[in-house]
Each structure stands twice: as structure tokens, then as C-alpha cells.
């Protein structure tokens, strides 16, 4: 006796139809997925091409070495890129140690208690606070309450606060990826906690941490709103004092107190002008800005890629 029940032709056809239908569903969705991808990519391409098309012709030595001007053809981004560079310097100098310190504490030190939970919830909420709110914070506290004015120092500080959550989160991820065996063997040779962190855990997490700091800085470099809010000027026709000087002590921190403008503000300012000639300037600034951020992200992605490959081998 056979327990096989042979399928009738109609049943076989029905199941074949079902399989066909399922295949069709999958293919349709895969196509939809690809279409969405292509749509998003082509928008991104359109953005880049439009910007480059409008602005690339304007980028030359004069554009980089001229101050802004009322005449579009003579205006340049000198003060803007110098300002951006100096502000980024301050931001990196503040955000890196503070963010790495906080990330290290949360991942390796924080005891399991309410206060640690509060810090943790707080960090993830800070990541969601709109950037312009940070601008209001800096305006109310740094600019007026502490009387610091809209200086490079304040600009760097507000951007540092803004990217702090990014640095903290990526530091924590990088530290979490450090194998626990490394910690055990470091403690095993008699290291104290800080020695374990400084000599073993942080060096192992370094590529991941650097990636996070670069990603954070690339976000900061394009931030406009908080810098506008603290009252940075849009028309700066001078440079801050040089950070280096010919006489001892050779470094000079007066530049921290200087008013400033940055690339995205310069671009915003030119977009807001009615004359199309200024829009060309804006596009040129946008190309430079885009190139900077993409270059920084490219470096970050490259480091991460190398890191992933190193982990695999």
C-alpha cells in the first residue's frame, strides 16, 4: 500500500500557479526596492550635478583669497574658510576629549544605578535635540550670561556640544567591540583600571573612535543654524589674529575672541540675495563645503572598512 497520493493535473497546475505568484511578488518588490534606490540616488546626483554645474566655474584662487563684497564677481570665501577651519579646531579640541571621556565612563565605569540610567537616556535625547536649540543655549548662556560675545570660541563650543552625542555613541560602540579577553589579561598582569583603559582598551578602540570624531566634525562643518543663532556675522571683511606669531611664545590665542563667519553661513547669505550672480557664489561655496564633508566621511568610511577587514582576519 502506498501512502503517496498522486497529484491530479489540476492540483499540480494550482501549486505551480501559487509558486509563480509568489515569485512574481518577490520580483515586484525587488523591482520596487531598486526603483526607490534609483530615485534617491538620482536626487542625490541631481543635487551634486546642479551644485557643481552652477558653482565650479567660480572656484579659483581669487574666490578663495577674497573677502565678501557687495559685488558678486569680486566676493570670495576667504574669511569663511578661515573661520570654519578655526572653529573646527576648537570643536575638535573640546568634543574629542569630552565625548571620549563620557563614552568611556558610560561603557566601562558607570555602576548600574538610576544616575547612570539618567545619563544614558539623556545622551540619546541630546542626540535628538534640534541644532538650533543648541544655538539658543549658547546665545543665552555663553554670549549674554557669561558675556563672551559671538566669538570663534563660542562657535566652537556650541558645535562641540552639538556633536558630543555622536562622539559618545561611537566611542561606546568602539569600546564595546574590544574583546573582553583583552581586559582580563590586562587586569591579569596587575594593571589598575586606568592603566587597562589607557594602555589597552582605548588603543584597541582607536579606529572606531577616530571614525566617530571625524563623522561628528563633518556634521559640525555643515551646521548653520546654531552659528546664526549665536549672532555670528554674515559679513566679515577681516581675518582673526594669527594663531602663530614670530615672537615668543609663538602661539597666540587672541583669535579665540574674534568675530567670525563660516562657510555655510556665507553660503546661506548668498542664497538669500536676490541677484543670481550671488547664487553662483553660493553654489561655489556649496561645492567646497560638500567636498569637505564628503572627504571627511570618505576617510571615516575607509577607516571603518579597514577596521572591519582587520577584525575578519
Amino acid at each position, binding site marked *: 500500500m502506498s501512502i503517496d497520493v498522486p497529484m491530479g493535473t489540476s492540483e499540480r497546475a494550482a501549486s505551480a500557479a501559487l509558486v509563480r505568484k509568489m515569485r512574481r511578488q518577490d520580483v515586484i518588490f525587488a523591482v520596487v526596492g531598486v526603483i526607490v534606490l534609483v530615485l534617491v540616488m538620482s536626487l542625490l546626483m541631481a543635487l551634486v550635478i546642479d551644485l557643481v554645474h552652477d558653482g565650479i566655474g567660480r572656484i579659483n584662487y581669487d574666490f578663495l583669497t577674497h573677502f565678501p563684497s557687495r559685488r558678486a564677481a569680486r566676493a570670495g570665501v576667504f574669511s569663511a574658510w578661515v573661520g570654519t577651519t578655526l572653529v573646527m579646531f576648537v570643536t575638535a579640541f573640546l568634543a574629542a576629549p569630552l565625548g571620549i571621556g563620557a563614552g568611556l565612563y558610560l561603557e566601562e565605569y558607570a555602576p548600574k544605578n538610576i544616575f547612570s540610567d539618567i545619563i544614558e537616556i539623556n545622551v540619546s535625547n541630546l542626540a535628538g535635540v534640534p541644532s538650533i536649540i543648541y544655538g539658543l543655549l549658547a546665545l543665552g548662556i555663553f554670549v549674554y550670561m557669561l558675556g563672551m560675545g559671538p566669538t570663534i570660541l563660542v562657535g566652537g563650543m556650541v558645535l562641540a556640544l552639538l556633536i558630543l552625542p555622536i562622539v559618545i555613541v561611537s566611542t561606546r560602540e568602539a569600546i564595546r567591540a574590544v574583546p573582553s579577553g583583552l581586559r582580563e589579561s590586562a587586569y591579569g598582569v596587575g594593571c589598575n583600571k586606568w592603566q587597562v583603559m589607557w594602555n589597552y582598551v582605548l588603543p584597541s578602540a582607536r579606529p572606531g573612535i577616530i571614525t566617530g570624531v571625524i563623522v561628528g566634525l563633518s556634521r559640525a562643518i555643515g551646521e548653520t543654524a546654531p552659528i546664526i543663532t549665536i549672532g555670528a556675522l554674515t559679513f566679515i571683511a577681516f581675518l582673526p589674529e594669527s594663531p602663530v606669531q614670530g615672537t615668543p611664545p609663538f602661539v597666540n590665542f587672541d583669535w579665540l575672541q574674534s568675530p567670525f563667519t563660516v562657510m555655510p553661513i556665507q553660503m546661506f547669505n548668498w542664497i538669500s540675495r536676490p541677484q543670481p550672480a550671488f547664487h553662483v557664489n553660493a553654489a561655489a561655496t556649496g561645492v567646497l*563645503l560638500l567636498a569637505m564633508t564628503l572627504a571627511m566621511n570618505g576617510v571615516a568610511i575607509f577607516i571603518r572598512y579597514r577596521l572591519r577587514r582587520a577584525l575578519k582576519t
Partner: protein
Amino acid sequence: MAETSIKASEYEALRNNPYLRRGRLLSVVMRGILFACAALSVAITAAIIWVLVSESWIFFKQVPLLAFLTDTHWTPVFTDAHYGILPLLTATFWAAGIAMAVATPLGLALSIYLSEFARPNLRETLKPILEMLAAVPTVVFGYFALLFLTPLARQFIPGLSGFNLLVPGFVMGIMILPYIVSISEDAMRAVPMSLREGAFALGMSRWRMSMTVIIPAAFSGVTAAFLLGFARAVGETMVVAIAAGQNPNLTADPREGAATITAYIVQMSLGDLPHGSLAYSTIFAAGLVLFLITLAFNVIGFFLRKRFREAY
């Protein structure tokens, strides 16, 4: 005695070893410094709340809360000053709503595609590209919205103003897409393989499996992604400040321009704002409203995400 035997006070000697003492002290000091770094984040939040509330306090001493919430005009610098937040609020929600109308279907399709359909190699190439999209400065998106997409869209949409809510809303939708996709794709990929295998064993197609297993299983994580994305759109500044205009306008028509809360703050900050004036305090009152809205969405999103993580 053998060379490895302990001298009676060996442990004491270690304890009093000046080098080890310094090391212990440094370790304790560093712990304190690291704690201070972490605590700084709480101080930032506290400072944000304090600044917003104390400046708004000055504002609400002169403007009744009821008028703030019900007046349909926002004209703080006119001689006939009105302080109704509604025009700013509706414009904000219009723009963010349009962004979500774009980002929800695209985001869902992309995250399902990346998590369930795309081959690992393709995914590894696409994710960095999406990250690149997230890295484009918002002011560049603003340029794109105002000077490329709006002129283009005006050829197809009759009655579309040069400044409008539609185009910046659309651009914000594309802008928050990478953020939404990265969170919701993570949530989908966190669904255990065994659930997928169970569905395939029942003979489901990939598509059926995504709809009947992945989406329900990852629901709280995916919802969190969209709430967090919405909060982003609400707080986004430069795109709307550039392309939606800076004119407070209570409108039901997204083809018109209207200032959002963020655009208003930018506009006032660009002008000469005397510290301590009522006009100065308006940006903090507007900021407080913005902060509360984003906070609400972020908190809900945070707990949904946390619940999801605990489930798997």
C-alpha cells in the same frame, strides 16, 4: 627559604610602593574626570531647559498663554504686535508632515529591501552611500530646494509660490531618509533568523515573510525610527528657512510659503536683536515649543526602541 617566598610584609610593601600609589591615585582621579565628562551631558540638558524656561518666563509675563496658543497672527516686531504661535506651528507641521509622507513609504521600502532582499555585498556598498547622503550639509539641501527643485516643480504644480512648504517638505523627506532607514533596517535585521526560517518553512515568499513576520516583529523598532525621523524634520532649520520663506502665514495650502518655528528663530537672529527685549524673548518661547515637541517624539521613540531591543 626559596627565592619566591613571601617576605612577611610583601603586601604592605606593595601597598606603600610610591609608584603604585601614584598609579592608584591617577586611576581614582581619572575616574572622577571621566564621570565629570559624562555628567556634563546632563548639565547640557539642564542648561537648555533653564535657558528656554527662564527666557520664556519673561515672555509669558507679558503675553498671556491663552493668546500665545490661540491668536492666529505672529507679528512680534510690528507696531500692532500679535504673539500667536499657531502660524509657526502649522507651517512646522505641514513641512514635517510632507517630509513624513515622502519618507514613510520610501523608508519602509528601502529598509525592507536592504534588510531582506539585497545581497550582503550590495548592502555593504549602499549603506555608505546612504551615509554620504546624510552627510550633505543642510544648507546645500536648502540651495537645491530653492534654486533647483522649486523652479522645476513650478512648471508642473499650478499656483506654487517661489517660497512654499511643499518642496522643502519633500527635500526634508529625502534628507531624513538615511537616518530612518538606518534605524529601521537595524530593527528588521535584529529579528531572529529562526522567525524567518519558520516563515520560509511554511512556504512563504520573501515578500509575504517580510509583511507577515518582519514588520510585525520589528514594529516598535520601525515606529521608533519614524518618530525619531519626524522629530528631526520638525527641528530641521536651514531647508525651511531658505525655501519656505520667512513670513508667518497661517495657511492650509502647502503651495504657499510660511515661516516655521526654526525659520523664525533664524530670521530674528540675523537681525539686530536687543538683549532683554520682548522680541529677544520670543525666540526662546518659540524654541521652548520646538523643544517640547521634539522631546516628546524623541522620548516615545527612545522607549519604543528600548522595548524592541529588550524583546530580542
